[in-house]
């Protein structure tokens, strides 16, 4: 079914986490863009995009993530995408988007780990 789309910041973690739920497509993407813009204007740090509750992402969603990565990359920060769904991971891989400042991890737990390394 058509699931509600929501974007919520969790700032009480080591790194700020954006929890996104639903489907990211041309219809819902503007909401994500707004949230990310608001965030990057206020915060100067790495950011975690939690896509565990996302079951669809299209090129507009990837474009928005790439744009954010470019913006925060200027200050040497990066976007950490958390997702373990094979179909979503595949889209990131086909897109050729993964680079040194867009990282793809399987779980939030791995974020903490990768920080320590």
């Amino acid at each position, binding site marked *: 079914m058509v699931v509600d789309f929501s974007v919520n910041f969790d700032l009480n973690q080591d790194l700020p986490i954006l929890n996104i739920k639903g489907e990211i*497509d*041309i*219809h819902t993407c503007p909401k994500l*863009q707004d949230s990310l813009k608001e965030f990057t204007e206020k915060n100067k740090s790495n950011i975690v995009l939690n896509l565990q509750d996302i079951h*669809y992402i*299209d090129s507009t969603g990837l*474009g928005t993530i790439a744009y954010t990565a470019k913006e925060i990359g200027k200050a040497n920060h990066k976007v950490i995408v958390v997702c373990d769904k094979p179909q979503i991971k*595949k889209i990131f891989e*086909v897109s050729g*988007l993964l680079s040194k400042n867009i990282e793809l991890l399987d779980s939030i737990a791995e974020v903490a780990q990768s920080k320590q390394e």
Partner: protein
Amino acid sequence: MSNSPLEMKITIPCSTEFVSIIRLAISGIAARMNFTVEDIEDIKISVSEACTNAIQHAYGNNPSSDNEIFITARMHPEELEIEVEDKGTGFDLGILGTAPQKEASEKKMGLGLGITFIKNLMDHAEFSSKIDSGTVIRMFKKSPKPFQ
């Protein structure tokens, strides 16, 4: 029974909220044709990107019930064919993959990924476009077992 393939036609207005509904309908068709979950995802994304392009580029993101997008799914015995047509601006297919197009895409926060996805995720895709007349994308995916 006639010999032509079973065909489902959907017409939507150029309005972003309909793209997820097209994905639902197309998943339903693909599931009925016994495509795997992975194939269904590939088909969903490809059709969705074609519709998104029509909304963004063909009709300049101007939601209106006059600007229509026509989706046709044809269930061939061995493959699913999906056609996405718009009557919008059209574009020069020659620009695809060129540097100026990449630049233009990026200006619109795009990545030139829509057509890349369609080409990579479907078995085969045909593009035709005519300036001021519109664009048609036909894409094909072989079904795992012959249908019917």
